[in-house]
C-alpha cells in the first residue's frame, strides 16, 4: 500500500468529534520530541484546520517532563484547553497525566511504560514503541529521538491525518532535507500500519480537511518580532541570553543575513552578545544615541538589571527598543512559564519620576507590526520603547496572516543635519520647539560647529548644559511629561469589539485575548460583553470612552496583582470603581473555561 491508499482504511465512528479537540504529548525534555510535535501541528495546518501549539517545557536541558499542547478547532479557537487526548511517553508523569484526562478522553502510550491509572472512562491505546523502532537504521544514540515518530504515526491513524500530509509536514520541518525525512517517515508509516492492523479506534476524535488556513503562515512571536525589528530598520542588536527571549535574538541573527545581503557581503547590522543585561542595554542606548536603530531582548531578571539604564534613556532621551518576553516572576521564578507580571515595574522602570512607553503585542501580526512601530516610536519620541510580549506568544507557534509590508517609510524623528543646522537660528537639544515635548537632536559625526551637545543623566537645561537650577529641572521634567502625553497619541490604538447588547466590558492585553475571545462567544447569551484589547501604555482616550460606555469593566490579566487594572485606575480615578480586576497567574496560558467561570463568579457575587 502506498501513502494514499492507506487513508481509506478507517471505520467511521458513530458520532465523531471532528476538528475540535486538544491533545497533549507528554515526553521528557531533551528527547527531541519537538520535531514530532511540530510535524503534527503543521499537518493540521496543512489540512486547513485552525490550530495552535504550546510547548510547556521545564527549565532544564535533559530529562525533566515536557508537554506539548495542540488545540485543533474548526471554530478557530486557539486558546489553551485542557486536553482530551494524551500521548503518554513520559514515565515520570504518566500517572498524573492520565489521571487528569476528562472522562471520555484518550490515552495513547508507550507500552513499555508502567503505572497508568485504572480508568474505565477513557480509551487506552498501547503502542509497542521498542518493537516499532528496533529495525530502524539510525545510531543507537538517536533511537529515543526516532521513538517520537511512533506517536506521529499513531496519531495519523487515530485522527485520520493523511500520511501524505505528514510527509509534507515532515519535509517542512526538516527544511526539505530529504535524508532526514527518509529516516523519520518509515517509523511513522510503520506505526500507522501497525495501528491499522492492531488497534480498534473506539474514540470519536478525528480531523477532516477544511479551508481555514489558506495562505496563513505559522511562526513564533519571537520570530515575528525579530522580523518586525528588521523591517523596522534595526542595525544594532545587543543582548544577554535569557529564556524566553533568546529565540528572539536567534531569529534576528538567523534572518538578518538572509534578508539584508549586500553586494560586498559586508554586514549592515551587528548583533553583540553582551556580558550581562546592564551591558546589553548600555550598548543598545549607545547605538541609539549614535543614530542607529537598536534593539535588545530580555526577560524579567534582565528588566530588573536594566533599571538604571532605562532611567538614563528616559531622562537623556535616547531611542532604543527593549523586548521583554515575560516569564513568571518575582525573581528567577519559573523561567519556562508564561505570565504578564512585568507591566507595573516596566512602566515605572527607573528611580525618580521615570515613566516608560510600552507596547503589548497579542499575535504574531502584532509582533511584526509593533516590532516596526517600536523603532519609529523610539526615534520619534526619543525614548526607550518597551515591547512586552510573553513566553506563550514568543516561543510558541501561532497562525497568522502574512505580514503587511509597512506603508510608511522609516520615521527617524527630529534629527537635524548639518544643512538644517545652518538654516536654523540655533540649536538647543532639549528645547520644546514644537510644543510636543520632543526636542531636536543631532547625531555624533555631524560636521557643523553647532552640532555637538553633551548627553547626560544629570540635571541639564535646554542646551544640554549641566544645571542644578530648580527652574531648569522643572522645565525639563514638565516637558518630559508633555512628551509622555504626545506618546499617548502615537502609540498603537486599542482594538475594540463593541457588542451593542453589552452592559459589561472586558479589557485585556496580550495573549489573554484568545481565552477571552472564546469565552465571550460561549457567554454571548448569558453575559454579552464588549472587548477592548489595550495595545500600549500610556493609554489613549479610547480607553476612557470604552469604560464610560459600559456599566462596568472586567480587567483580565495574567499576573497576581492586577497590574494594568491598577494603572487604569490611576489614569482614570473617576472611573476607578467601574474597573474590576480578574488577575491570576500560575504560569499557564488562560483557558476560556477559566475565564467563563471567573466572570460568572464575579457576576453572581
Amino acid at each position, binding site marked *: 500500500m502506498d501513502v494514499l491508499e492507506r487513508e481509506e482504511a478507517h471505520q467511521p465512528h458513530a458520532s465523531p468529534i471532528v476538528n475540535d479537540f486538544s491533545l497533549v504529548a507528554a515526553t521528557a*525534555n*531533551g*528527547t*527531541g*520530541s*519537538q*520535531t514530532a510535535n*511540530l510535524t503534527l501541528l503543521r499537518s493540521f495546518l496543512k489540512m486547513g484546520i485552525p490550530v495552535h501549539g504550546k510547548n510547556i*517545557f521545564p*527549565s*532544564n*536541558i*535533559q*530529562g*525533566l517532563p515536557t508537554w506539548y499542547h495542540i488545540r485543533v478547532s474548526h471554530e478557530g479557537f486557539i486558546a489553551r484547553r485542557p486536553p482530551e487526548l494524551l500521548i503518554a511517553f513520559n514515565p515520570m508523569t504518566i500517572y498524573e497525566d492520565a489521571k487528569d484526562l476528562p472522562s471520555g478522553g484518550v490515552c495513547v502510550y508507550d507500552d513499555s511504560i508502567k503505572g497508568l491509572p485504572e480508568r474505565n472512562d477513557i480509551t487506552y491505546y498501547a503502542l509497542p514503541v521498542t518493537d516499532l523502532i528496533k529495525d530502524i537504521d539510525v*545510531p543507537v*544514540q*538517536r533511537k*529515543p*529521538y526516532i521513538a517520537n515518530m511512533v506517536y506521529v504515526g499513531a496519531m495519523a491513524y487515530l485522527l485520520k491525518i493523511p500520511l501524505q500530509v505528514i510527509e509534507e509536514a515532515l519535509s517542512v*520541518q*526538516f*527544511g*526539505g*532535507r530529504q535524508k*532526514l525525512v527518509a529516516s523519520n517517515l518509515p517509523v511513522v508509516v510503520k506505526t500507522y500500519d501497525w495501528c491499522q492492523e492492531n488497534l480498534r479506534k473506539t474514540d470519536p476524535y478525528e480531523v477532516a480537511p477544511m479551508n481555514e488556513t489558506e495562505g496563513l503562515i505559522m*511562526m*513564533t512571536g519571537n*520570530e515575528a518580532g525579530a522580523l518586525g525589528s528588521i523591517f523596522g530598520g534595526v542595525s544594532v542588536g545587543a543582548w*544577554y*541570553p*535569557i*529564556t524566553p527571549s*533568546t*529565540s528572539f535574538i*536567534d*531569529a534576528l541573527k*538567523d534572518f538578518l543575513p*538572509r534578508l539584508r545581503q549586500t553586494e560586498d557581503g559586508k554586514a549592515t547590522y551587528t548583533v553583540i*552578545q553582551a*556580558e*550581562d*543585561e546592564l551591558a546589553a542595554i548600555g550598548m543598545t542606548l549607545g547605538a541609539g544615541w549614535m543614530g542607529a536603530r537598536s534593539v535588545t531582548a530580555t526577560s524579567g*531578571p534582565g528588566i530588573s538589571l536594566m533599571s538604571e539604564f532605562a532611567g538614563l534613556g528616559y531622562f537623556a532621551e535616547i531611542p532604543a527598543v527593549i523586548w521583554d518576553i515575560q516569564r513568571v516572576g518575582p*525573581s*528567577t521564578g519559573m523561567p519556562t512559564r508564561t505570565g504578564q507580571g512585568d507591566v507595573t515595574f516596566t512602566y515605572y522602570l527607573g528611580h525618580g519620576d521615570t515613566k516608560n512607553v510600552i507596547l503589548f503585542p497579542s499575535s504574531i501580526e502584532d509582533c511584526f507590526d509593533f516590532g516596526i512601530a517600536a523603532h519609529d516610536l523610539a526615534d520619534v519620541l526619543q525614548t526607550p520603547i518597551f515591547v512586552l510580549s510573553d513566553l506563550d506568544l514568543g*516561543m510558541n507557534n501561532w497562525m497568522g496572516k502574512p505580514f503587511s509590508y509597512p506603508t510608511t517609510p522609516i520615521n527617524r524623528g527630529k534629527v537635524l543635519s548639518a544643512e538644517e543646522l545652518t538654516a536654523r537660528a540655533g540649536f538647543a537639544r532639549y528645547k520644546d520647539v514644537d510644543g510636543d515635548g520632543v526636542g531636536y537632536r543631532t547625531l555624533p559625526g555631524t560636521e557643523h560647529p553647532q552640532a555637538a551637545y553633551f548627553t547626560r543623566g544629570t540635571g541639564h537645561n535646554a542646551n544640554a548644559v549641566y544645571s542644578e537650577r530648580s527652574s531648569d529641572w522643572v522645565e525639563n521634567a514638565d516637558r518630559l511629561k508633555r512628551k509622555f502625553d504626545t506618546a499617548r497619541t502615537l502609540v498603537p490604538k486599542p482594538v475594540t469589539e463593541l457588542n451593542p447588547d453589552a452592559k459589561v466590558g472586558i479589557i485585556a492585553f496580550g495573549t489573554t485575548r484568545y481565552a477571552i475571545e472564546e469565552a465571550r462567544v460561549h457567554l454571548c447569551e448569558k453575559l454579552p460583553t464588549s472587548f477592548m484589547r489595550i495595545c500600549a501604555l500610556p493609554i489613549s482616550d479610547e480607553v476612557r470612552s470604552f469604560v464610560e460606555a459600559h456599566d462596568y469593566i472586567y480587567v483580565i490579566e495574567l499576573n497576581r496583582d492586577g497590574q494594568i487594572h491598577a494603572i487604569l485606575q490611576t489614569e482614570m480615578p473617576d472611573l476607578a470603581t467601574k474597573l474590576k480586576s480578574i488577575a491570576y497567574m500560575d504560569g499557564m496560558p488562560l483557558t476560556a473555561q477559566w475565564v467563563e467561570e471567573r466572570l460568572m463568579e464575579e457576576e453572581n457575587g
Partner: protein
Amino acid sequence: MASRAQAIKSNAIGLSKKDYDGSVSTLCKGCGHNSIANQIIQVAYELSLKPHEVIKLSGIGCSSKSPAYFLGMSHGFNALHGRMPSVGTGALMANHHLRAIGVSGDGDTGSIGFGQFKHLMRRNVRMVYIVENNGVYGLTKGQFSATAELGLELKYAGHNDFPQIDICTEALIAGCGFVARSFAGDAKQVRELLKAALSHRGTAVLDIISPCVAFNNDDSSPKSYSYGREHEQPLQEIGYVPYAEEIVINDYDPGELKLVELHDGSRISLRKLEEDYDATNRLEAINRLQSAAVKQEFITGMIYIDNERPNLAEVSHLTDTPLAHLSDQDLRPSEEKLSSFLKAFA
C-alpha cells in the same frame, strides 16, 4: 537490623556517604558537573564534615543548580546569576565559623559575575569557589562564554572572535591565595584539590574543566547552528540531547601531558604540574599559565598557594561569636549609653 546498620560504612562522625547526598540531579547524563558534585560528596564524607557547618552557594546556570545535588543536610542558597560572591560575603561575615562551598559556571563567573568574582578574591572571603568551566552557557543552550577559546567554532554558537578569560590567571592577579585547576573526570585530583581548598584560610579558587554534553559540536546532531541556518528552522524547535557517558580519565603523572577526548570528538590537553613545581611563587605561576595558554594546554594541579594573607573576617577583627548569634545584650547598647551618647548632640 543491627547487622544491617553495621554493614553501612560510616565516617568519624558516624555519617554514611548517603548522608551527604543531595536530591537527584536534573542535569544531563554525562555532564561534568555531576562528576564534581559526586566528588564533593565523597570529600565531605571522607573529611567527616558536619553538614550543618557547611553552607552551599551558587549563582544561576546548570553548574549553579548542582548544590541541590550534594549535601542535602547543609543550608544552601541558589542566588542570582553572577551574584553568589556578594551573598557569600555577607553570609560569611554574619557567621565566619561556617565553611562555604560555592559553585559557579564560566558564564556566571566570567561574564555577568566577573566584577563580584574579582572583588571576592580581593577581600579574601573564606570560601571554596568552584568554577565548573565548560566554555558555554549550558542552561541557556550553548552560547559562548568568556572562557571559550579565541577562534573556537561551535555549530550553534558559531565562531568565537574574542580571547578567552583565564580564570586562574584572573584569580592570581586579583590576589587570590589558592588557585588550582582540574578536570571534572579526574576524580582523584578533584578530590585532592577540594580537600586542600576546604582547609584554606581565604578564597580558594578551583577552575574545573567540566564538559557540556548537550552543546557540543557533534556534526550529526540536528541541534547544530549550521543545521538551523541551512534549513531555515527556528532553532528552539530542536531539543534533542543525545545520550552520553560521563568522561572519566585515569590518573596521570605529574609533568605528564594528557589528551582528553570530549563528547564531540574534540580534544583538550591537560598537563599536570610537576612534583617540584613551586606553587608558592606567584610570578612563576603567572608565567606558567601564560606559556601554557600559548601552547593551548591547561596546566592542572595546585597552581598557587599562599595561606598568609588574612581573610576578610580576620581583617575585620570580628568577635568569636558569629555576628548572627550575638545576644540582644551584645547588640543593643544600654539605655544609659544612649542618653550619654546623645549629650554630644545637645
